[in-house]
């Protein structure tokens, strides 16, 4: 009844639509001053992901990308806005319907050690989703999943501590695929892995996406990986998307000063490139989300603002995210950036 991956959806309707999503956290105040302080981790974010699309969300720690992911997979109810999966607003579903619709979107976690229960065998871990959703032929499906991610079926009898990080991440991916979802939310899927293992797991993700026609919401801080596999990229800063567009547009025609600085900060393993590139060093660090910033939220660190002689508009008016369908930027001076 409810949408599963094979369901026919209206043509061109997005698989996932996020509208004006907001996530807030209560701020732990000192004992004698317990008030109703809140920090806004995600501040009205909207975007949509289509079938078969790899959508990347880029941001540094404190940008709110993990909170956003948790709200999208509905393990934490958002404080505002809505998440529509296959056109159905998740907030309108009752417990049973929600459980059914969960089959369509699954999550791959950052830390393969903490995301697998150490007291369960790989087989039990992989059969949990199947049991919860009363799928038959659990055993053969578990073997199928292990093979799918490049592991031996015999691993089912073993415990997580017997495996390396890369192998465990494959198990994590297999678990996410158990219910044949249409969308995988991958939260920093390779950042906890060793450099020589990263490429293997990225390649696995690329292959699975192609073979199973999956959509990905890829959350990452490693711009190299995003550039390698994403179709659409959104850059987040302090809870808001500041730039969004096709991969080519965001990487080759960056329009937000933050995106430009971020890209210039990523080191490249080539001496010639490193010696000749112009690096923009931002001042300070991402402000704590508890601080209220008026105007553009990037203005405290913006290199362009100082270069333009500190225009008043940056500190007074928050720039809207605007532009074309394939490239939108939230900056008053996009034109200056492009130049």
């Amino acid at each position, binding site marked *: 009844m409810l949408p599963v991956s094979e369901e026919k959806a209206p043509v061109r309707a997005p698989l996932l639509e996020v509208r004006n999503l907001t996530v807030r956290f209560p701020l732990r105040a000192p004992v004698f001053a317990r008030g109703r302080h809140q920090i806004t981790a995600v501040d009205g974010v909207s975007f949509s992901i289509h079938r078969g699309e790899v959508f990347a969300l880029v941001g*540094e*720690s404190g940008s709110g990308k993990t909170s956003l992911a948790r709200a999208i997979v509905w393990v934490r109810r958002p404080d505002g806005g809505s998440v529509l999966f296959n056109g159905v607003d998740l907030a309108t579903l009752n417990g049973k319907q929600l459980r059914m619709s969960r089959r369509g979107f699954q999550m791959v976690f950052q830390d393969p050690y903490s995301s697998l229960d150490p007291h369960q065998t790989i087989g039990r871990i992989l059969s949990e989703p199947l049991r919860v959703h009363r799928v038959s032929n659990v055993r053969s499906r578990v073997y199928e999943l292990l093979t799918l991610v490049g592991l031996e079926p015999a691993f089912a009898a073993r415990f997580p501590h017997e495996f*390396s990080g*890369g*192998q465990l991440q494959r198990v994590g991916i297999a678990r996410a695929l158990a219910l044949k979802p249409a969308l995988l939310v991958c939260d920093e899927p390779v950042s906890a892995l*060793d*450099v*020589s*293992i*990263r*490429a*293997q797991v*990225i*390649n696995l993700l*690329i*292959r699975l996406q192609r073979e199973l026609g999956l959509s990905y919401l890829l959350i990452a*801080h*490693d*711009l*190299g*990986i995003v*550039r*390698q*596999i994403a179709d659409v990229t959104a850059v987040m800063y302090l809870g808001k998307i500041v730039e969004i567009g096709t991969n*080519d547009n965001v*990487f*080759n025609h960056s329009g937000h000063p933050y995106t430009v*600085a*971020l*890209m*210039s*900060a*990523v*080191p*490249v*393993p*080539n*001496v*010639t*490139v*490193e*010696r000749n*590139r112009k*690096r923009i*060093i*931002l001042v300070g*660090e*991402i402000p704590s989300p508890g601080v209220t910033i008026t105007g553009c939220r990037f203005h405290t660190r913006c290199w362009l603002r100082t270069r333009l002689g500190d225009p008043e508009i940056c500190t007074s008016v928050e720039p809207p995210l605007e532009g074309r369908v394939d490239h939108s930027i939230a900056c008053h001076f996009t034109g200056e950036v492009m130049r």
Partner: protein
Amino acid sequence: MDYAMCWTLEVGGDYRHSQASRRMLSGVTPAYQGTPRHSVLRVENLSVDFIRGGLGLHAVRQLSYEIGVGEAVALVGESGSGKTVSALAVLRLLPSRTARVSATSIDFDGNDLTRLADSELRKLRGYRVSMVFQDPLSSLNPLMTIGQQISEVLTTHLGLSDSQAAVRTQQLLDMVGIAGHSRRMRSYPHEFSGGMRQRVMIAMALACRPALLIADEPTTALDVTVQAQIMELLANLRKEFGMAVLLITHDIGIVAGFADRTLVMYSGRLVESGPTENVLAHPRHPYTLGLLRSIPRVDRNRRGELPSIRGMPPNPYDAIPGCAFAPRCAWAIPQCHVSSPALEAVGTDWAAACWVKPNEAV
């Protein structure tokens, strides 16, 4: 720049500089000249084993390397490759209960560290050679102010009084770009952001103007934009002080912009060492080559699958007869599985430990 000024003012002070550092202060940073050179650190045949529950773990095997005066050297490797352990072993900072360290010799600044008494070695630590660690939060004492923790180094090694140390601490904070020092000095580590804490660590490490700074993954816990700040700061201070830096990292990107020479470790052994531009452009060890090829780059429009290294790093408890990389190596020949190759020169000051030494561009 600010910190340059501050240090010129300080040079006339009561620092007890060694011959070598006085030479550096005059602004002569010995250029990289290849062998032979004045080395600040020369490690020969360093091995470290960990004894845990009756099992022996070979963390570092027969590691030899050299760092020239004022030179920036990167020690690159994955987790478990032994890069951090080898650095800690040099300064005798490993737990003596579990770690067994052996070396033919470790020559630092004219002292053989393998023969030095604990009390003598202690006088060098934090004074002639200092360290910056990966996680700046856990590396700072949560109960002491920033000011106390920095001045402690000055009072210990330079015999400064508390008030003299306080003055100098302010200058050090200035140098690493922390403004508003009088308030900052009374702050505690938890009141600082990650980048600021790392700046404090750097100020502490450079307080006595060491001849060698060992930076162990100094930016791994930080965001990219902050990483760029810290690396720039380190590069500037290195030029300023003419000190040598041993940068331990797993991020080859950082190496490219910072290090004169690069050492690559795999499974406790040095597999390649040479000038950074050579190693990164034409690596002669298959591991280095595979690693470089598998890194997705932000400056390239390349899509789809990456060339990756198959398999996994070996279990450090296993004894491997041949080359530790052989099981994952695309170039492996039968000999690779039998005997372990030694480092062999492939160019000026450039060596690789491989029987095949493929010659391909990245």
